[in-house]
């Protein structure tokens, strides 16, 4: 049974539909990501699940109980805020104990639970510190420990890694996954970072302009996007727009009439570049610039009719190319995805 069920939820702010008829379910124990650009409504949806906003329409059901009308303090949900929202006048242990004190929990059990949470996030020696004495990464751990202390059925994480620097983000991402597996709580993560969503989540819901665009596993979202928006937002992609004609039926699975408008999406790392024309289909292009990213490089190409292409290849392979080099671009037919939306 689904732990979280969102049915036809809408929320307007003035004339703007922040969340528009969104329905989705999150399975128990999942690490579910809500992915979308800023302003797509993902945070508003999260705030409605937490109880800070009330939906105009629709229902929110958690573990079989309709919580749509419940205030935040009565919901079996806890949230890790993007700003962490740690109480500055309490030490770390006080912050973690705050939620437990709201229930009539025995003092000794609170202390034990706080210690347990501090150990979980590897902050055992920091119980007496104030939030302003901690680094960004440590604050993030405390925020996580505080949100998990009450053993919520559902943990909401609003851009949990956004405030961390790049290196710390990668480590913390793994830690978050590890902690989620250990405690078994259902995590709902809101993020605008496709890489974060792809690497963390077991399922991803992509939102755009208040609407739910697509739901799937990371591989489905990345390899078989169902819309131009998802293809584009999910990662670096080349999009070819045109009409479906005969001869492209190798891309099928998509039963489209001939002449239908369609887009061919090709991930930039699926393009092969060669100096000599390969056997089979290929496109002639010239290198316009090369962006070095360390292990990989992005090669910007110009093909016929001024069409811009992007290829991602190992920097060792890109090293023998230069601006103006003439190349042949090819790809395996299986790697192209036909998108009709």
């Amino acid at each position, binding site marked *: 049974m689904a732990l979280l069920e969102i049915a036809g939820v809408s929320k307007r702010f003035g004339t703007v539909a922040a969340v528009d008829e969104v329905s989705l379910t999150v399975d128990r124990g999942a690490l579910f990501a809500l992915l979308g650009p800023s302003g797509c409504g993902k945070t508003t949806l999260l705030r409605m699940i937490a109880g800070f906003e009330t939906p105009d329409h629709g229902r929110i059901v958690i573990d079989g109980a309709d919580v749509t009308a419940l205030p935040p303090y009565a919901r079996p949900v806890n949230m890790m805020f993007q700003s962490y929202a740690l109480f500055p*006048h309490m030490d770390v242990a006080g912050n973690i104990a*705050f939620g437990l004190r709201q229930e009539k929990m025995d003092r000794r059990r609170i202390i034990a639970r706080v210690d347990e949470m501090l150990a979980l996030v590897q902050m055992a020696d920091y119980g007496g510190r104030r939030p302003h004495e901690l680094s960004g990464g440590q604050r993030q751990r405390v925020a996580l420990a505080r949100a998990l202390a*009450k053993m919520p059925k559902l943990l909401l994480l609003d851009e949990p890694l956004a405030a961390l620097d790049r290196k710390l983000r990668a480590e913390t991402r793994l830690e978050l996954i590890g902690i989620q597996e250990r405690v078994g709580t259902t995590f709902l993560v809101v993020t605008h970072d496709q890489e974060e969503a792809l690497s963390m989540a077991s399922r991803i819901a992509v939102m755009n302009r208040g609407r739910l665009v697509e739901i799937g596993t990371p591989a489905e979202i990345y390899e078989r996007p169902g819309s131009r928006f998802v293809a584009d937002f999910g990662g670096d992609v080349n999009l070819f727009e045109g009409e479906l004609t005969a001869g492209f039926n190798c891309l099928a699975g998509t039963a489209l009439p001939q002449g239908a408008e369609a887009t061919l999406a090709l991930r930039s790392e699926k393009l092969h570049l060669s100096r000599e024309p390969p056997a089979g289909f290929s496109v002639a292009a010239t290198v316009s610039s090369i962006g070095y990213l360390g292990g990989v490089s992005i090669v910007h190409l110009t093909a016929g009719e001024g069409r811009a292409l992007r290829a991602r290849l190992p920097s060792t392979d890109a090293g023998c190319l230069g601006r103006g080099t003439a190349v042949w671009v090819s790809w395996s037919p299986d790697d192209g995805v036909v998108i009709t939306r």
Partner: protein
Amino acid sequence: MIGIGRLGGLALIGLPFLWLGLFFLFPLLIVLKISLAQSAIGIPPYTPLLTNDGAGLKIQATLANFALLASDDLYLRAYLGALGNAALATALCLVLGYPIAYAIARPPGPQRQLLLFLVMLPFWTSFLIRVYAWIAILKPNGLLNELLIASGLIATPLPLLNNGFSVELGLVYSYLPFMILPLYGSLSALDESLIEAAADLGARPFRAFLGVTLPLSLPGVAAGSLLVLIPAVGEFVIPDLLGGPDTLMIGKVLWDEFFNNRDWPVASAVAVVLVAALAIPILLAQRFLERERVA
């Protein structure tokens, strides 16, 4: 100091010191000097501190004025009376001002500016005139008594003026904005997500207020309380205009020493003791505020 230069930097730091030195410390030293003199008939009406009788400079100073303050219990009672009235006014301002500041600061929106403007509006009229206006409201045949009699609630006028009640009312009325403004500052700077976090962790609104909002607004409470308490202790106009024969406040005593008795040295001694007595709580509160700011 890039762009300002060393001299400019010194001027920037020095300016407040210069200001305080010229307009606070220097006058205070003059008052201190007078408090050590003896009353004399003449202009100015006190003996000089330094005299030159031909044989060299002589310092003429006495602690007799301070001894007088200690020996006559009128002064002690006046200090305590002022402190009591001011402390009560501070407490009442806090009780009244906190909900007002909260109501202005917490709901975000354009009405904040208007409400804040209304709090400051009384400052556009002279303080003296506003206190005078209360006489017209409170006197036996004043607005309030007329209204109460006309509505049939009372038959004879209530004694509302020239007593402890009217002094307290005047203090609270006059100093309430000084409580509201720093409280507003504290409460409006409060991060909304902290209150949401408290609610998210299961705290009902009142528990969230006690656990998060109130402790985080304590610097505003301290600042507002000081801004009310300090001027209220030395207040002279309100007890003079609204007070009665029983009203004993040190500001009034100080005025009488200066202008009725023309005893400048004793009046100066009263002022020096008042400043010293107020400086201690200020310094204590400052340390508290400093600690809160760090935390």
